[in-house]
């Protein structure tokens, strides 16, 4: 197990390096002179040169990259052009809101999704299955911003049950949590249904039935537990989806999280902030998948001996 985890950890390093090169190159891929871009269109020649010197843009690209990495390891991601505070501080001040949102989605959606999927698989071909799968595909097809706006219109404006924006009381979490979780619920319902159907066809399930095991035990201990193995991998990918879903959810509900910061930074062309946020988003995603893969190794012993 230790070796499996170590190997998986080592595999992450080159990926992180390539991501860092991509994010570093971001400012150089922009059309035009990077110093001019950072200084703004109206900047004088002196200002542009000052920016060039300050950001070290006059040095060779490879030196710039090493400096960028050196700063990154010290937690220095430059200063925001818009607010002139360090990008790391800016992101940190927004971080908690996004994490709260992601947790609000994770609190119910995976469980609901797996529950629906398993019930549909057990009741395959019945009305329950039809309704469950219809619900899932609708959840998958409904744009988050539409669900959110409808929710605000009906529950907040019309009925007055929840606040229209912000994240301060438990009430204010309900709608964002639904918007965040719908997609993950729908996806997991579909995957856990097909995964459960697959396991139900396995020989060990037939054996369990043949030896006269009670149906509930066959379903739970033999089929359900094994069907979870596939579902866990999908969950990792889905949490990444939640991170990007926060961009939409934070915009609809005016929550000052990282997603909202990204949207604002793009609108303001605050490139150091955009770079920092992209790096953080990608790192989070890679780390989450690393953890999920390790979990996968824990619940599925087969994978460790590859």
């Amino acid at each position, binding site marked *: 197990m230790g070796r499996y985890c170590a190997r998986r950890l080592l595999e992450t390093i*080159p*990926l992180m390096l*390539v*991501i860092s090169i*991509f994010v570093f190159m*971001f400012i150089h*891929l*922009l059309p035009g002179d990077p110093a001019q871009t950072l200084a703004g269109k109206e900047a004088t020649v002196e200002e542009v040169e000052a920016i060039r010197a300050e950001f070290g843009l006059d040095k060779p690209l490879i030196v710039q990259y090493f400096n960028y990495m050196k700063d990154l390891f010290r937690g220095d991601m430059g200063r925001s052009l818009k607010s002139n505070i360090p990008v790391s501080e800016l992101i940190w001040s927004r971080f908690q809101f996004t994490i709260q949102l992601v947790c609000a989605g994770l609190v119910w959606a995976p469980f609901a999704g797996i529950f629906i999927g398993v019930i549909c698989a057990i009741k395959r071909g019945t009305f329950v299955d039809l309704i469950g799968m219809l619900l899932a*595909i*609708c959840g*998958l*097809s*409904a*744009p*988050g*911003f*539409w669900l959110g*706006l*409808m929710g*605000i*219109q*009906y529950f907040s*404006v*019309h009925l007055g049950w929840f606040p*229209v924006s912000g994240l301060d009381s438990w009430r204010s979490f309900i709608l964002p949590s639904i918007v965040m979780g719908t997609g993950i619920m729908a996806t997991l319902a579909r995957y856990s249904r*097909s995964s459960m*159907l697959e396991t139900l066809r396995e020989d060990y399930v037939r054996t369990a039935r043949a030896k006269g095991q009670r149906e509930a035990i066959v379903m739970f201990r033999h089929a359900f537990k094994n069907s979870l193995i596939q579902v866990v991998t999908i969950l990792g*990918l889905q949490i*990444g*989806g939640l*991170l*990007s*879903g926060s*961009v*939409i959810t934070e*915009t*609809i509900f005016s929550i000052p999280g990282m997603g909202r910061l*990204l*949207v604002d930074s*793009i*609108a303001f062309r605050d490139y150091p902030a*955009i770079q920092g946020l*992209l790096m953080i*988003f*990608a790192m989070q*995603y*890679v780390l989450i998948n690393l953890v999920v893969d390790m979990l996968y190794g824990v619940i599925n012993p087969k994978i460790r001996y590859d």
Partner: protein
Amino acid sequence: MSTNQNERVENQAVFEENYIDENIIADKSSKTREFIKKFLKRKTAVAAFVVMVFLLIIAIIGPSLAPYDPSAYDYDNILAPPSAEHWFGTDQFGQDIFSRILAGAPLTLGVSLSSVVVGAVLGTVLGLLAGYYGGWIEMLVMRGADVLFSFPDILLAIAIVALLGPGIINVFIAVAVFTVPSFARMMRSATLAVKGSLYVEVSRSLGCKDGRILFLHIFPGTIQSLIVNFTMRIGSAIMAASSLSFLGFGANVTDPEWGAMLSMSRSYLSTAPHMVYLPGLVIFVTVLAFNLFGDGLRDTLDPKIK
């Protein structure tokens, strides 16, 4: 001896041209018929197909069907709820929402469809090459896909728009790039699966060139997965493109793009809820139709997944 060998090579070529290909073609037409018969049994998928075709027709001829000029202001009819004159009501400028949805269909569907086509072609070629040649090509393509996948979901599209700036053309590029890695990964594994099959080995032993094996023998074997993935990705592309427009990165706010229309509706939640419900419903129905059709295709082509 050399004439003998030439003769043999010629014979092999004749054998390959006439016997093998003919057989495959004969097999294909009966398979298509069988496929259509099976597909027609899936009522939801057929219904989704009808809706899909209807939407595509709307996208082509819709703008000329619009009862009103989609950009004509009518200050006597501002924020009017749905009525006999204005089926979907009007917006804050008195513009007819139904006409705007018709006029926006080519924009939303055109951008999504064309970007999936471009992304699919690029991803397919990369995936085929990676799966067939292996080695450094495979490593390059797969690690590239990994990096792109580290920006989950629509985040990659947002990053690309951040780089290129807002605008509908840039949304097209962003969604195309966002589509590439999924096709590259899928085609690689499909290619690997087909590569080992007997008929590929036969064509190689007959002396077929790589290009011929790749595009005439391996590619047709992967086409099922390709079609299914293609249909599924259109749904996500519509979602991504309209999300980008909703965030203000895509079409101009004054353009009748569906996501942009919803973004305008945010300010009128309490006075004109129809501005949220109806354009969003159109996006939802469109994505749902493509997803249901994709599901039906997958289940017909590969019943074991169901």
